[in-house]
């Protein structure tokens, strides 16, 4: 169900924005292409708030930027309903993106200036919105004089003043503290429900499941590598929603399950030749395992995140790493230690390194490969670039650097090899020591 206020003839009419088969590819320096978004079909209907959720790096922001017209899809089409193009979209940024050298009022007026409105008219509209959004009295202030919450209010005012048909928001509350974010969310929802703004639809990119369930009429869940639409969840609870409501909790759990589900790799997703590792340092991994050991039962991932005040974005990679190394199992939004995980958590520092090494060499081909390459070299040394180059062909340069960083961290922790930052070389300590003592004999 679409929100009751907005339901009506419009709800079944042509969508405001239609995305068909949208792909976003990027070129990799070593030739070949990587995929950010794959085959996205999406309709934005009049009267709805749409939440886009997905793991970090899943291309949520790219999707939003394609809708905003900031970047073009590599393939596929974005169609706006007649009349929506033009001043039809506005964007609220996670970083606020305010011009530090302009006052609040000047920041709000920037879109009107671009439209070429006369100064009098500009001022009238700006002041009206400033008033509505609760910035009264701060017109002449500079952004640096404001708190984060007030700054984002300026961001909202700047968007709303151009009367956009579609309001796009890129994690608008995630740079704010919890209370401020809640306050701003409520104010925004109030404006929307009371129809004090002419906006016809809102798209919000977020990593907070609660925020999505609290605000949105529909949640779109993206998968990772490459991002496809994994699921769409309608949220039909009437506003104002209560977080304690069992239906609310159930929705949050459902979405959490969808987000943490490790998809069986579909046959057509074969442009990934190597298994990648989540960018997690060994320390964070040990921390998670110790924590789980204390809890000894199955633990709800969502609760865990809450407890640690970690976002899904931060928690998921650690969970993935634990799963990859066989220290934990995840099923339906719950995480549980395996026997190895339990052993690890109980072991001494030195024993841990051994367990970690065994697991990593067995289950992480990338690491096993590194150790093998080093073993084959007579001097036991290899340049870092070699491994980066190998990975670059399949995952692109940036990701390759990150992968090698992570693998080196794991390798150092498990004492599988050592790394010299100056010469940027990986080496086997045993071989190098042998060689250093050998010539003197």
């Amino acid at each position, binding site marked *: 169900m679409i929100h009751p206020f907005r339901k009506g003839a419009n709800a079944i009419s042509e969508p405001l924005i239609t995305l068909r088969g949208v792909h976003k590819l990027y070129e990799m320096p070593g030739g070949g292409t990587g995929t950010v978004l794959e085959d996205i079909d999406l309709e934005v209907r009049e009267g709805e708030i749409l939440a886009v959720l997905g793991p970090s790096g899943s291309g949520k922001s790219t999707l939003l930027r394609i809708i905003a017209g900031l970047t073009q899809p590599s393939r596929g089409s974005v169609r706006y309903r007649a009349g929506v193009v033009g001043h039809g979209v506005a964007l609220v940024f996670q970083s606020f993106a305010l011009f530090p050298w302009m006052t609040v009022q000047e920041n709000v007026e920037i879109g009107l200036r671009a439209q070429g409105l006369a*100064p009098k008219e500009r001022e009238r509209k700006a002041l009206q919105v400033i008033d509505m959004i609760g910035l009264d009295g701060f017109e002449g202030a500079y952004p640096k004089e404001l708190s984060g919450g007030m700054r984002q209010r300026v961001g909202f005012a700047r968007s709303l003043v151009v009367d956009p048909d579609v309001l796009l928001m890129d994690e608008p509350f995630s740079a704010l503290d919890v209370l401020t974010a809640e306050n701003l969310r409520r104010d925004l929802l109030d404006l929307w429900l009371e129809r004090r703004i002419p906006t016809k639809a809102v798209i919000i990119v977020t990593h907070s499941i609660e925020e999505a369930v609290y605000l949105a009429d529909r949640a779109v869940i993206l998968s990772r590598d490459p991002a496809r639409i994994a699921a769409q969840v309608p949220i039909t609870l009437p506003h104002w929603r209560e977080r304690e409501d069992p239906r609310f909790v159930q929705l949050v759990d459902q979405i959490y399950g969808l987000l943490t589900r490790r998809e069986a790799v579909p046959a057509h997703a074969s442009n990934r030749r190597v298994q990648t590792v989540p960018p997690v340092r060994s320390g964070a991994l040990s921390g998670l395992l110790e924590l789980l050991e204390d809890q000894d039962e199955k633990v709800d991932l969502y609760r865990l995140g809450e407890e640690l005040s970690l976002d899904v974005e931060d928690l998921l990679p650690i969970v993935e790493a634990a799963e990859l190394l066989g220290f934990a199992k995840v099923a339906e939004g719950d995480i549980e230690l395996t026997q190895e995980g339990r052993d690890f958590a109980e072991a001494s520092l030195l024993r841990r390194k051994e367990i970690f090494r065994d697991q990593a060499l067995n289950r992480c081909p990338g690491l096993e490969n590194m150790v093998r390459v080093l073993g084959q070299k007579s001097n036991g040394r290899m340049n870092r670039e070699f491994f980066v180059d190998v990975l670059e062909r399949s995952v692109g340069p940036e990701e390759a650097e990150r992968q090698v960083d992570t693998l080196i961290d794991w390798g150092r922790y498990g004492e599988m090899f050592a790394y010299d930052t100056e010469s940027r070389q990986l080496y086997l300590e045993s071989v190098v020591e042998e060689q250093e003592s050998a010539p003197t004999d």
Partner: protein
Amino acid sequence: MSWFPAPAIARRRTFGWVDLLVLLAVLLLLLGVVRLGSGMAAPLRTASHISLSPWSLPLYAGESLLRIVIAFVFSLVFAVAYGYAAAKTNLGRRLLVPLLDILQSVPVLGFLSATVAFFAGLFPGSTAGLEMASVFAIFTAQAWNMAFSFYHSEMTLPRDLQEASTVYRLGRWQRLWYLELPSSAISLILNSMMSFGGSWFFLAASENVTYAGRSYLLPGVGSYMAVAEQRGDAGAMVAAVLVMILLIVLVDQIFWRPVIAWSQRFKMEQTRAADEPTSFVLMILQRSMLVEMLERRVLRPTLEGALRALSRPPRPAQVRRLGRGALGSAGGLLAVALLAWAAFSGAHLLHGIGGAQVLHVLWLGILTLLRVAAAVLLGALWTVPVGVYIGLSPRVSGWAQPVAQIAASFPANMLFPVVVALLLRMDTGLDIGAIPLMMLGTQWYILFNVMAGTMAIPSDLKEAARVFGVRGGLRWRQLILPAIFPSLVTGGVTAAGGAWNASIVAEVVGWGGHLLVAQGVGAYITLATAHGHFGDILLGIAVMSVLVVAMNRLVWRPLYRLAETKYHLD
């Protein structure tokens, strides 16, 4: 964006003493400019026309200042236009950026005399040509690093602000005015200040030029000093030095300080810094009703109207790039034609220069290179300990920093003959003597960079060193030298660049009828200029440029990389 947003109380102020002050200053300025400007097309003057009366000094100082200011305005416009074109067009990135890199390495002073001849030829019998040559010389000393700074800012615009500008559909000119100029303001202003300070040297050189056996003089502090030296008038020399220092200090206080304080609004940080630079002059301007009214009634409406008229908003999702169309190809053709012409005329001039001569000039170049290296190393030898001492003591650095800046701005070439007199007394030839002459102007760059680097050492590192009893030599090796390394490299690069330029005036110096000449490519260029041998000038400059570029690539760039990776403090 308001340029002088007055505080709310000030808006209701009536005409007061501040306004009177501003009005008076504006009138004086206008009067001065008209008076000095009218002298710019006067008939040619020779040394006998320069009056050594101290009363004419302020007027000469004004003329010098006017020259440097005109050149600066050109430099600023050029920097923005060049940086913009380099950043926004494909051609720019491929052609303009490397070109700038080369232009930066060419010792501009080598061209000075040749350009004087060219411009003097345009206006025979009038000083207008000389004035142009002088302004051009100063321009070439100022413009390149300003252009680089603007280009760099263009390339590193904050992504979110760019996106906001696109989403809210700012036109190209609006984007320039509301986003790109403000984003680049702080770095552009800092670079402007450095360029401005550095160009006094070129001003002094360009007021007194010998080309093809003829001596050209422009009235100004530089020529006043030169004539005073010729006539051995010690009193006039002291007066000239004092006026020069006063001029530098005044420009700093009345112009740069307010501009720097004003530019703080363009900081990207979203938080307020505790100690922002302040300026008394800026406060007067901001409190003046006259300025505020001018800004609100005249400046702002005109500007906004112009921006609106110029900017048709681009279609969303499509930021058009300059240079795709006819403009780009026309620019490309022009550039190619210019290069071809330069290559052709260069080849023509160099015709008849044999391999032996090239080798000889190369040898001279290496001699000068050794001198430059010695000047930088000797400079570092005393400036590092002194700079570190000053930097570690907040009390001393409070007054020493501005002094070092003034010393760096002071045109050392004005003092060359005085130093040469000392050298003669000590019986040192110019082959060695040119080194202290080079140091005279360039060591200050190392000094204030070391000072700045030392002051930037985080106090927790200093405390950690103290707690663990790290003292003496160990402290130098493990804390101070690594921490100041990046600043030391920056100072060294600047000093070396300055020393190369200085070699052109430091390897040939006249004193009391003697002409002292050192073996070096600087002297080679100067002598070739004095005789009007164009081919030799070109050869000398080419050799020097090649050496400068080679040093940059082989020595400074690796050091920079090391500074950025290993010795980077953040």
